[in-house]
């Protein structure tokens, strides 16, 4: 029974650790994606450099945007050729004229890019809409009006928000499903510890009733059982830490290409230490709680 208690607590703590790690990882991933998310405004051939730079100068005033870069037709060609430098067939036949000039925009968060995308795709703006975009983009109303004048020069707005939205969705699913699973495992852990310690308490019922009759306090009677339960939980948590220690490096090496892509570094040591400590506390706490219920339930003399 003690072994099953340890194993169930191990499962609960391991899943808890996994859940917290996943939530932290996905949260970090979203922040990373948000900071790297980019909206590109491609201009048609009727737009000249001065008009595009004028639009850029307005956007630069926004407190919600991190950067607004002008990419000329020539620069677009250079980017293309550097990207496909190992495929001469693709580079040979292209000239700067076929690439549109653009503005590459990065924002502090996805909401600002969403707002900008909505603004650029909207037709004539009502006064309410004008106020809304002015506040969400961190621009003056006059600036928003000036920016509206550039809309006819826009060929296309490219904004890939789907991926970030999907990660966000999976973060929510993971959080709720994980919490549900964790709740279930916590319940089962407490039940198994309750039965394990309960058997022990029932076996010592005579001893407990004699101890109470000779003046033992509740703490004196319950103490050994609470320690026993806490130790079972602690061992379960240690097992979980050992399993995490073996699996996490594998996980990191498996995902290393993704880390490089996202220029995402490993979590800080204090975060790992806090997580480990949290797992130990959770394990011991589960064991202690199960024992406490068992002692309360079976030691009434």
């Amino acid at each position, binding site marked *: 029974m003690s072994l099953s208690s340890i194993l169930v607590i191990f499962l609960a703590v391991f899943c808890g650790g996994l859940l917290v790690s996943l939530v932290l990882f996905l949260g970090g991933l979203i922040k990373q994606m948000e900071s790297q998310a980019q909206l590109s405004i491609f201009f048609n051939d009727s737009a000249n450099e001065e008009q595009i730079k004028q639009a850029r100068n307005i956007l630069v005033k926004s407190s919600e945007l991190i950067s607004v870069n002008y990419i000329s037709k020539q620069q677009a060609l250079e980017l293309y050729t550097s990207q496909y430098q190992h495929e001469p067939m693709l580079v040979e036949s292209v000239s700067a004229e076929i690439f549109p000039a653009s503005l590459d925009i990065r924002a502090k968060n996805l909401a600002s890019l969403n707002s900008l995308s909505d603004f650029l795709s909207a037709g004539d703006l009502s006064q309410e809409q004008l106020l809304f975009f002015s506040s969400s983009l961190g621009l003056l109303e006059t600036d928003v009006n000036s920016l509206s004048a550039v809309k006819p020069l826009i060929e296309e707005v490219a904004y890939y928000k789907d991926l970030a939205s999907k990660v966000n969705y999976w973060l929510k699913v993971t959080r709720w499903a994980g919490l549900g699973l964790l709740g279930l495992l916590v319940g089962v852990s407490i039940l198994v510890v309750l039965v394990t310690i309960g058997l022990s308490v029932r076996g010592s019922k005579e001893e407990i009733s004699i*101890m109470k*009759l000779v003046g*033992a306090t509740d703490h004196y009677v319950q103490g050994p059982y609470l320690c026993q339960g806490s130790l079972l939980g602690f061992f379960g948590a240690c097992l979980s830490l050992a399993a995490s220690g073996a699996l996490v490096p594998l996980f990191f090496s498996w995902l290393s290409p993704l880390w490089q892509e996202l220029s995402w570094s490993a979590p800080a040591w204090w975060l790992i230490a806090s997580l480990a400590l949290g797992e130990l506390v959770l394990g011991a706490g589960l064991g202690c709680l199960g024992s406490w219920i068992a002692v309360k339930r079976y030691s009434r003399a």
Partner: protein
Amino acid sequence: MLVFDQVTKKYPNGGFNLDNISFTVTPGEFVFVTGHSGAGKTTLLRLLIRDFLPNHGEIFFGDTNITGLKRRQLPSWRRQVGVVFQNYCLLPLKTAYENLALVLRVGGKTEKEISLIIPSLLETVGLANRQNAFPQELSGGEQQRLAIARAISYNPPLLIADEPAGNLDKDSAWQVFGLFDLVNQWGTTVLVATHDEVLVKKTKKREIRLNNGRLVDS
């Protein structure tokens, strides 16, 4: 002074276990509580250790209102009452020494103090050479003497015993009552519940007689 003031304890089915009992016991007195089986002797003793509460009335020992004690105060009160049961209530998997040590540990005595107290306790009850014996290796009389040693380990001001000689032969019973008499001479108030009227008459101690939960003589 032990005071029972109009104490009533009813059975769950409505009958009376103790019906409006009032009496006093002066400090250092030795009193027998007598009556046939079911008269209410055990109920009276269990009320004293607050195993349960009366339906009506109050019980005092000195300044302590036993019926008014809070749950957290019970351990402290129970350490002031030595209790001896008919079936000894010894822990079968612990030696005589360990049975006594457990009670002393509960009261917060150190291992060093325990190692000094136990030999003298065992000496007092005539079990000096049996400290490593398990209860099942002791005779009935020896087990009861060990239970008495446990009950007096704190020098309690009140010692209560429920049919302590119920399972003993006459010689062992006299040994046990001899011990109660000794403890009483030290100044401890002793209350012994028994139905052995011959023994009560021979010892010429005060008798509180119960009949069907009522006090018929005190």
